[in-house]
């Protein structure tokens, strides 16, 4: 049957994924240590692209596409734009705060502890794959009629979340106009009212 294909993936998939993850971790650490914000922003874009790759490997093509467009694209452009309006070098020395390390370590350890009872990665019998998802996979075609299940769920079953998501975008737009819009008027007001 499709045995060959499955075999091939089971070896190939993890290898590529592992490489991607190793790169991502390396990039993240590098970003943390960089003082040039411009370089960090570029690396962040690459990081997002790599994560899009990893997402593809995990069969989440829609997410990967969006991540590539939004995460690697829009976010990076936004950050670069913000750098253009502010500064591109971190001027203060990097200090290592003890509490921050403590919090981060605690978070990591907690999560690692949480993985102990998790179903194994890719386990088809995990509860997540057994309850609601099969219904979407097997009945959405008749109920909705779109082959892309992600789209069906997004637009119909969980359409309300998408509506909420649109509202989030609206909110961000309102915020951006309020905070940044009318820059000239704002600056005039600020200098005028600096009592």
């Amino acid at each position: 049957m499709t045995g060959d294909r499955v075999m091939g993936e089971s070896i190939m998939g993890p290898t590529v994924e592992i490489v991607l993850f190793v790169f991502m971790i390396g990039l993240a650490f590098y970003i943390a240590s960089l003082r040039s914000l411009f370089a960090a922003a570029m690396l962040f874009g690459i990081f997002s692209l790599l994560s899009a790759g990893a997402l593809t490997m995990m069969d989440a093509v829609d997410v990967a596409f969006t991540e590539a467009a939004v995460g690697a694209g829009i976010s990076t452009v936004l950050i670069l734009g913000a750098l253009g309006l502010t500064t591109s070098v971190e001027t203060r020395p990097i200090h290592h705060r003890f509490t921050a390390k403590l919090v981060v370590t605690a978070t990591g350890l907690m999560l690692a502890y949480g993985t102990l009872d998790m179903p194994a990665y890719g386990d088809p019998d995990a509860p997540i794959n057994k309850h609601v998802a099969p219904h979407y996979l097997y009945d959405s075609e008749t109920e909705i009629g779109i082959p892309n299940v992600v789209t069906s769920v997004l637009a119909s079953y969980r359409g309300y979340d998408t509506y909420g998501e649109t509202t989030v975008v609206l909110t961000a737009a309102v915020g951006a106009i309020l905070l940044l819009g009318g820059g000239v008027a704002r600056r005039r007001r600020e200098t005028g009212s600096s009592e």
Partner: protein
Amino acid sequence: MNDFSVHLPILQVVIPLLAAPFCFILRKEAVVSVFTVLVGFACFAISMDLLAQVIDGDVLVYELGDWARPWGIEYRIDILNALLLVVVSSMAAVVFIAGPGQARRAIPEGRGYLFYSAALLTLTGLLGVTITGDVFNVFVFLEISSLSSYILIALGRSRRALMAAFSYLIMGTIGATFLLIGIGLMYQMTGTLNMVDMTERLRDAEQTRTIFVALAFVVVGISVKLAVFPLHQWLPNAYSFSPPLVSAFLASTATKVAYYLLIRFCLGLFGLTLVFEVVEIDVLLLPLSVMAMFVGSIAAIYQRDFKRLLAYSSIAQVGYMTLGLSLASEAGVAAGLIHVFNHALMKGALFLVAACVTWRMGGTRLDAMKGLGRRMPVTMAAMVVGGLALVGVPGTVGFVSKWALVSAALEKDAYLLGFLVMASSLLALVYVWKLVEIVYFQEPETGIERREPPLRLLVPTWILAGASIYFGVFSDFAVDVASRAAAQIFAAGM
């Protein structure tokens, strides 16, 4: 008629949601501000109707897009949500009355309508979080409310508002992401996102370490929003530098919704056994609540700014709420919920007083408030009422809260705890009295001419101050609804 009332649950959220972009069309600030008030009262009316429908124990279910549980998202209203819906929408309606003219101070000409739009979005988010029966939907609407509240906070007059909003944004996003991780783990172990469905399935998966961790992440995530000590650092700046009306609105709604979430997740989803017997979050939550009560109140005593003082007092008051939950008893949760309602009233009133003071003095520094008792007697009387309620003087809502909370503690034989609650309310007396002395016994630096703020500020202030007394005397409503809500959620959490 019937058709219409069936759709009330969705209208509760969709009305403010649609109203927000509608502000773009209206544009004229005067029109928009009136429109917001109308929306606020419409929401309030709907929430009261919903409460009336569920008060006897029926649960109202509204399936969005007609997808049945667990395939789609549903709205699910029991007494607990309904109570919170009433609190949020009533506070919004009252605070919005004071809206007109607010925007003019913070925002460039001609963009005032955006201020109202953002306020309506916050309201949408808060109502959406409260009403929904789907855990991921909680996250989405929580982000709507959070993002819009960051915007509102950033509109404060001083530049420090920007930094306050930014810090809140970072803290808030991290908190929301923690919640998202927790939800993810819950989803992973149950395969569903619907609350009812998840509750049933969690009972089977109860003993896994993944669920413990999920609980931890959910609680920490919500605690950031709730400003539970020591995750409260964002709050003092956010409340003291934001425009006063925004502080009034957020202080009386946002933390309340976070408290609701804490109860919903701990009791409704994870269940009593897991939360209080297996993981025992009360071991941590209880001392933190007591710390919050004392640290918040003591910090409030030393503040030199009215709004900042109120902000620190809020941290202490959150301590009372979480203390109620960590008692792990029905009476304790009921006490916490009573305090949610009561604290919304009194803090709302006090922050509106701050708005009045800002209108008159341009700021809320305490040394500028000297002798204000003679210069704006009506406003300051409201401050005294709110302050006495914070202390818990009989005849005010604060007393009802304290009575309920201490009774709940004593019922659990936690005598020392009851005593500590009393002791911390004395600290409230110290800072409230400090205010009273400044306002009534110190000579103003400039003239004593009497000038009250306009009615649009004075009326909502006194609505809330009056309610702080009214519901302190006729407390049946809050006590009854809160007790029923606690009983219902407790039965579900068994």
